């Protein structure tokens, strides 16, 4: 009797404990959304439309973030335009043209994926910015930020593409060989289109990572609040803006920074939903 009842206690305790930890994960996300909303809601209701203007002068109570929103977008788009094709083509090449070097290269790429973003930023400051400076001063620029981000998102973009190609049925390849198609023809007409949605879904997530990256961009973008017009001009992104100004922001200024955090969260959610949609599933993505 005693063993049974104590066993029952341990089991029901475990059940409840596990339910609690499961709920905690949901609570964390809910908490993040709630804190950002509570911090920024009153301000947004009052001057929400002012946030979209192009005049960021916190000293004069002007909180138009358009230039930084544009900065975030152009920097990330260029990074994706550079890294996306390289990642996809390289993954395909490794799998179908150079299988012998695939393993070692993927090992290296996994190491790259673990390198801290501050170290990528450091590389940008030490190598890229001086180079671009020689080309067109000042060096810390949209181009530098995009190149650093491109190198940063490339590893995961490549690994996702490799996984997507690996999930294609082997019979596609066999059928192609039986028809004696060239490997490039196979890739262009069969393999890449078949794996396309999964690849694009992965790239969308990497675009989200680029948008959300703070440190690497902060270190090489120059951080001047200005509408981005030239590749060689300094830009400031939303994330960098938070990192730069949070240290001394007070009052409405601080609230505006929380509002920009909320905007980042919202965009991330939209991109994640898009990536699920492309995969045709509701879950199973990291």
């Amino acid at each position, binding site marked *: 009797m005693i063993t049974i009842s104590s*066993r029952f206690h*341990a089991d029901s305790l*475990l*059940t409840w404990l*596990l339910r609690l*930890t*499961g709920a*905690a*994960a*949901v609570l964390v*996300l809910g908490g993040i959304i709630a*804190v*950002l909303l509570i911090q920024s809601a009153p301000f947004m209701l009052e001057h929400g439309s002012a946030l979209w203007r192009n005049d960021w002068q916190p000293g004069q109570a002007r909180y138009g973030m358009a230039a930084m929103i544009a900065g975030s977008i152009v920097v990330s788009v260029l990074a994706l335009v550079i890294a996306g094709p*390289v990642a996809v*083509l*390289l993954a395909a*090449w490794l799998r179908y*043209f150079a299988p012998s070097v695939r393993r070692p290269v993927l090992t*290296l*790429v996994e190491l*790259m994926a*673990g390198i*801290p*973003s*501050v*170290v*990528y*930023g*450091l*590389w940008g400051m*030490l*190598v890229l910015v001086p180079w671009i400076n020689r080309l067109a001063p000042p060096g810390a620029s949209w181009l530098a930020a995009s190149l650093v981000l491109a*190198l940063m998102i490339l590893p*995961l973009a490549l690994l996702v593409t490799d*996984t997507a190609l690996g999930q294609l049925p082997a019979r596609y390849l066999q059928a192609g060989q039986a028809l004696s198609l*060239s*490997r*490039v023809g196979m*890739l262009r007409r069969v393999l890449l289109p078949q794996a396309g949605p999964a690849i694009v879904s992965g790239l969308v997530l990497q675009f989200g*990572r680029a948008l*959300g990256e*703070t*440190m690497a961009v*902060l*270190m090489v973008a120059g951080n001047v609040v200005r509408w981005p017009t030239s590749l060689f001009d300094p830009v400031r992104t939303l*994330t960098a803006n*938070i*990192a730069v100004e*949070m*240290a001394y922001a007070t009052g409405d200024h601080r609230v505006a*920074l*929380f509002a920009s*955090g909320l905007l980042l*969260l919202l965009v991330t959610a939209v*991109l994640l939903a898009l990536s*699920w949609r492309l995969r045709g599933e*509701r*879950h199973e*993505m*990291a």
Partner: protein
Amino acid sequence: MRWPDRLAGVIGALLLLAVLVPMGLMLWSLLEQGAGVISVDFLLDDPRQAGRAGGIAALLVSTGWILAVCLLVAAPMGLGCALYLSEQVPAGTRRAQWLGGTLDMLAAVPSIVYGLFGYQFFAISLGLGFSILSGGLALALMVLPLMIRSAEQALRAVPFSYRQAGEALSISRWGWVRRILIPQAAPGIAVGIILSIGRALAETAVLLFTAGYVLRRPDSLLDSGRALSVHIYDLAMNVPGGMPRAAATGLVLVAILVILNLLVRRWLHPAQGAWQ
């Protein structure tokens, strides 16, 4: 071989170079700047003159404490949630989808947003201030999805026949979890913990406004302490003449991360997707 295939071979090799050359340059530039600074004393001395001189001992201490707080929270919570997912939520149900979606979202949230949340919630609302505790807790939330996913993967990899055998012996749930499931999944769970350590060590933006950037050795968990990654950023951006030591600190950090990565490989070849 046809000409398109040959051309593709050449293009692929060029693309590979386009990735390898920047990585080589990264390593080379770090070594060029920082190698001269690294020595045993660099690891054992405290920083002086805002980090321009001296070593990184105080930062190693702070980083260690932040990491300890982070793991103490993230590991049990992560394991608990992973157990919940693998034991109590049947795959494919609505609840599994919602929880999976929540974890994906948590993994996608930009780290600066975790920083904002940690600053507002831990440092201000809970009154912890800029402290090791605030930083470690915010970091724990950030690595939680990774911890949960890798532990869940390890738990799901335990063969179903073990469960059947356990049920045939009418073992209690708690007994099954404690004596069979967790010991069997232990290597995979350890890999998850190591991956989480790597992610936590690499993170900077979360810590800027939670753990702060005081250079002293922390006396308690409520003191502010600067992590290695924050030190790299601060030296490179805000301290004139700090570049050599920023690069040296970067080398130390990368070395730690490479060792962790090798450990994971050694311990258990990570199942596909572990890097996610």
